[in-house]
């Protein structure tokens, strides 16, 4: 089935088409969810919720863009919603005085994807979300600020701190090894 046929089948609630979409994209989308979730079971819940949302809202997909990109955005939105769900209140902590560490980032290139995912998962929640949105999804700080309801400066400072924490974690790993 072509992508167009898959989309049409999903719109018509064709179970075979839906299962095929799931088979094609579930692995990558689970990775997306794992990057935002605190642990694997939460990631699986997010992925499940994300696919349900994909199938429920697939009629809104415009064929002008990438289908995979659209599914990925749905997953990210579900993850963000999950992040914001628990709190209607937003507490922001600025980090104006924070200095980035000088660890060599090349060390990350030697790590396996699963190890990188674990490092990301170990980040504090707010930092993790900002790092994912900026570093991997490619959102700007202005977009992140809007999505998360925080200031742009907060987004920047959280990104800096996330990077530093990742480097710190790698240093610790190296020391242990």
């Amino acid at each position, binding site marked *: 089935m072509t992508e167009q046929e898959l989309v049409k089948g999903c719109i018509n609630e064709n179970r075979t088409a839906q299962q095929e979409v799931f088979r094609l994209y579930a692995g990558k989308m689970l990775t997306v969810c794992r990057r935002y979730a605190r642990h694997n079971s939460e990631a699986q819940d997010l992925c*499940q919720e994300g696919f349900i949302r994909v*199938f429920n809202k697939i009629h809104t997909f415009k064929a002008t863009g990438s289908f995979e990109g659209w599914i990925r955005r749905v997953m990210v939105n579900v993850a963000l919603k999950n992040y914001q769900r628990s709190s*209607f209140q937003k507490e922001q902590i600025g*980090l104006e005085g924070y200095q980035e560490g000088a660890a060599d980032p090349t060390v990350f290139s030697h790590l396996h*994807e699963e190890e990188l995912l674990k490092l990301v998962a170990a980040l*504090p929640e707010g930092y993790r979300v900002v790092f994912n949105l900026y570093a991997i999804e490619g959102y700007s700080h202005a977009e992140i600020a809007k999505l998360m309801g925080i200031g742009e400066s907060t987004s920047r400072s959280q990104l800096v701190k996330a990077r530093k924490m990742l*480097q710190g974690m790698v240093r610790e790993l190296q020391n242990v090894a």
Partner: protein
Amino acid sequence: MNVLHLFKIIQMKTPNSTDKIFREKLGEYASEVPAGMWDAIDNQRSGKQRTMLWWQRKGKWVALIILVLGAGYLVLGDEEAAHGARHTAHGDTVQVENAAIMDESAEVENDAIEGNENKSSSQSKNNNQNQDKNNPFLTEKAATTNIIKNSKDLKNTTPIKQTPFVKSANIINENTPTDIISNIDKTLAETSEDNSILNINNKPTPFDLTNLQTNELSENNLLSTLEIPALSELTLKGKSDPCYAFNPYDSGKKGPPRLYIDVLAGPDYAHRTLTAKDADLGGGYATIRDSTETSRLGFSSTVRLSIVLANGIALRSGIAYAQINEKLDLFDGTTTGIETYEIKDVNGNVIGVQTDTVIGTRIKTTYNRFQMVDIPVILGYEVRDRNWTVSLNGGAFFNVLFKKKGEFLSPNLAPVNFSSNATPQYEAYEKTVGMSLFGSVGVNYKVGNRLHLMAEPHFRYYMDSFTNANYPLQQNYWAVGMNLGIRVQLF
């Protein structure tokens, strides 16, 4: 070390190099999917949900068609009703005229009719019969005007169908315009020499009955003389327009009550007053709370039934929802915070603890809201003028549900959570907010047979403080808002 290698190192040392590695490695990485995930998704999307979604997607066209047909019915139905009303109004005019003539000159009229009926020109009759056949309008007019001639017969006519006038017209439809005119002429001339009962503004009209002579009628001028206004323009002196009197929206103080369903929604602005129960202890605290919290635009909606009596008095009740929104803003420019994180290895084992001291600003924003569900009991008075209705309403809302969510500064000036479902909850508010007084002015415009558009600015005053007895401040509100919506006449 060559230049290319040096460039790579410099590139990797930039802040984005970390991001790039993560993006490249994780952007396309596919994790192993647990076996049961698809089944879980499939089960969660039950058959009912799938059906509902199909209807949501495909059914929008069905809904659109139903909406268009419904709107068409409401609007066109209204036009048909208005058209019917116009016909009826004509009939009504005839009836009044007829009655007036009958009242004042019954005997003379009868004599005149009996005496002159056979004297009508047979030539004219024959000439105009052809015209009758070719001109339905003329036939109709002739039938209408001829009521006067046959007023004697009408006295014994039992109305059937919609109005007695339709029946009357049918009964006398056999008569020719010449008969009609001559009889009207003679009858009016004999029964009222100065025609004082007729209000024709002393101007010659296309249908000046007093001057119309049978022998002046020709095939050409008959049309012009019979055209349009006819008896509908003839109104009784000192009486209201009988057409208007027949308008169901001006039915006076008679008739059955009408039942409407009103659906209204719109923005509200709530004004809060914080008053210290003990001025010495709570005055400063009230000021601090006022300075940290601001009002935001709220919302209210109502679904209610309105029973409107013929005299304009209305009783309304239903269910109402109101939401008061506020915002808490806390700002500390010199915050020092200590954050501690566990550092884990790739297997998830804790291998260390990282402690960071954060110096900077702290901004805390909390969006507070108070949600209320109330039962309104409203007494109103409505004045109608054709398609417009103006109403004045007053009553009380009885609170049945009160939920709150948010934070404020406690008397200790620490942010506390007062949400209904918070654990622990800072208990500052009552379980319900009691009664509130309501007043509004509504304006309705009839756009369809049963459909009205509504605008209703309103005022609401909450009688009791939202806070409980233990809290040092009284928190009172009044609110103003503008509700817009629709009214549908049920019967």
